[in-house]
């Protein structure tokens, strides 16, 4: 019965996706505009991309951002996975309500509050603001996203696999690394990627918690956007969009391949049994 879409549904899909993608497509198209006036088409040109690579401030900011995103995503993935395990495996421990609150609240917490409160913490404990403080702040808010992603995978996890491993004499740690982790790996990788892009994108929290010498790319873009729309910014944005799109699509394809492979293996195993 779900073979064909009604006219209404097709219209909803077309309009909905046009709304989602048209602004991004226009932004990309106008990054190749020869004219300095962003909204007047002056012919195709890649001059703004060439200009980018001589903009040292922008390149420095991009390097800072990449480092912050890499370190914070990696630590956040470890912490977020532990938090997901704690939430799904241990249904009762003292302070569980507070714990789940602290995992879910940052997902919706306005960024200005998170940014301000973390900054005041760093000032209170006497931390110099810079690379370190931005990274700590990003770990804190991205680990909750990792926890939610990993948790949804853990809920559908077949625990009899772990029990089997332990019956065969594996220690809990060994069971985790050889049975649980490989099964939840796609979610852990997705969590890492999500944490990485969230850190890459963040403007508000970084603005509060960063200090001299740790200007991130979004901070740089924001300060230029406030002065007006320029083709250089369109070019930076296009590069960022390209990186993220390639990353997400590659991950999706790898996941799909692995799924197909697993199905094939399962079928082969069943046939062997029969």
């Amino acid at each position: 019965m779900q073979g064909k879409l009604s006219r209404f549904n097709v219209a909803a899909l077309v309009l909905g996706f046009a709304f989602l993608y048209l602004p991004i497509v226009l932004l990309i198209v106008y990054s190749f505009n020869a004219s300095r006036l962003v909204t007047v088409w002056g012919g195709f040109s890649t001059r703004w991309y060439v200009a980018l690579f001589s903009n040292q401030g922008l390149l420095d900011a991009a390097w800072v951002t990449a480092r912050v995103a890499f370190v914070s995503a990696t630590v956040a993935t470890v912490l977020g996975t532990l938090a997901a395990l704690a939430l799904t495996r241990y249904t009762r421990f003292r302070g569980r309500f507070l714990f789940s609150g602290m995992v879910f609240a940052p997902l919706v917490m306005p960024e200005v509050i998170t940014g301000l409160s973390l900054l005041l913490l760093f000032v209170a404990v006497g931390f110099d603001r810079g690379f370190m403080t931005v990274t700590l702040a990003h770990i804190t808010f991205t680990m909750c996203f990792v926890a939610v992603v990993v948790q949804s995978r853990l809920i559908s996890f077949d625990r009899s696999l772990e029990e089997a491993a332990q019956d065969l004499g594996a220690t809990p740690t060994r069971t985790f690394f050889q049975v649980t982790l490989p099964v939840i790996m796609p979610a852990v990788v997705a969590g890492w990627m999500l944490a990485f892009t969230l850190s890459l994108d963040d403007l508000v929290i970084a603005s509060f918690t960063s200090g001299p010498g740790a200007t991130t790319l979004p901070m740089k873009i924001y300060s230029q956007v406030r002065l007006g729309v320029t083709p250089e910014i369109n070019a930076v944005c296009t590069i960022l969009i390209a990186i993220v799109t390639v990353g997400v699509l590659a991950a999706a394809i790898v996941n799909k391949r692995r799924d197909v492979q697993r199905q094939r293996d399962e079928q082969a195993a069943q046939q062997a049994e029969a």
Partner: protein
Amino acid sequence: MARAIETTTGGEAAARAGAQAGEGPGTRLAAALASRFVILVPYLWLLFFFLVPFGIVFKISLSHTAIAMPPYTPVLGLGEGLAGLFAGLRELSFENYLWLVDDALYLNAYVSSVVIAAVSTLLTLVVGYPLAYAMARAPGSLRPVLLMLVILPFWTSFLIRVYAWIGILKPEGLLNQFLMWVGVIDTPLLIMNTHTAIFIGIVYSYLPFMVLPLYATLEKMDFSLIEAAQDLGCPPMSAFWKITFPLSLPGVVAGCLLVFIPAVGEFVIPDLLGGSQTLMIGKTLWNEFFANRDWPVASAVAIILLLILVLPIMFFQRAQARAQEQER
């Protein structure tokens, strides 16, 4: 910070001890240690970097503004013991809160933030529902692709997506160029720097947050119910309101909370699309902090914003927990 690191290494040691004790009769002890480790490490991290900071914000919201670095006079220091604490209690100042109540600017900013967020949430629902519905009715082979298409913009930078709208909405922007070329209008529409621009920005940026939970509930729905209702003579519209919509309510609630709560404190969208006249509390807090360098007032603004949002946030957490229970 030092504490968090200590517990991390302590925890690792516990896990290693657990691994060694794992063989034979020690297994139970190892499991207990492992569970300690799994719970304690993220717990302490969040306690120190998420909960404690709120306490500090609250403390500073009660202190006096000072021209120094950091720009406030400390209150409630624990250095002088209990006597110092009592002396400190008398020092506490509610002037920042009185200041917020006295000045109509802040009150207006809170009210207009909540109103703008509520209207935008409703608009996001109106735009997102048909999309989620059509996705749920699409052929099974097409659905993963559609889902991917909804998620992809969510991965691209928020700032970039808001920035893209500036070029479209400004008076000499692409939308006005297009409409004037078609001949619908003669003079450019003034959308930029109005509430309309903020609504568009929020709907656009938060649409995936609305569509994903809606799709999740609609996809699980048994659409043969609708067919049954229609066979019994129920018109399609009323079948929708009587069956589909009530069944999708968990998704509606989750989606609305995911949009509404962050939208109330939104900074980037009102700052870039709303111009200087629009008041939203996230922008006010930002200005108090960065332009006026008044940390105590910024803290008081944050505490009141938190009080406004604490109920929706708890509601959100409950909904999440319930959804999880059903998944099991």
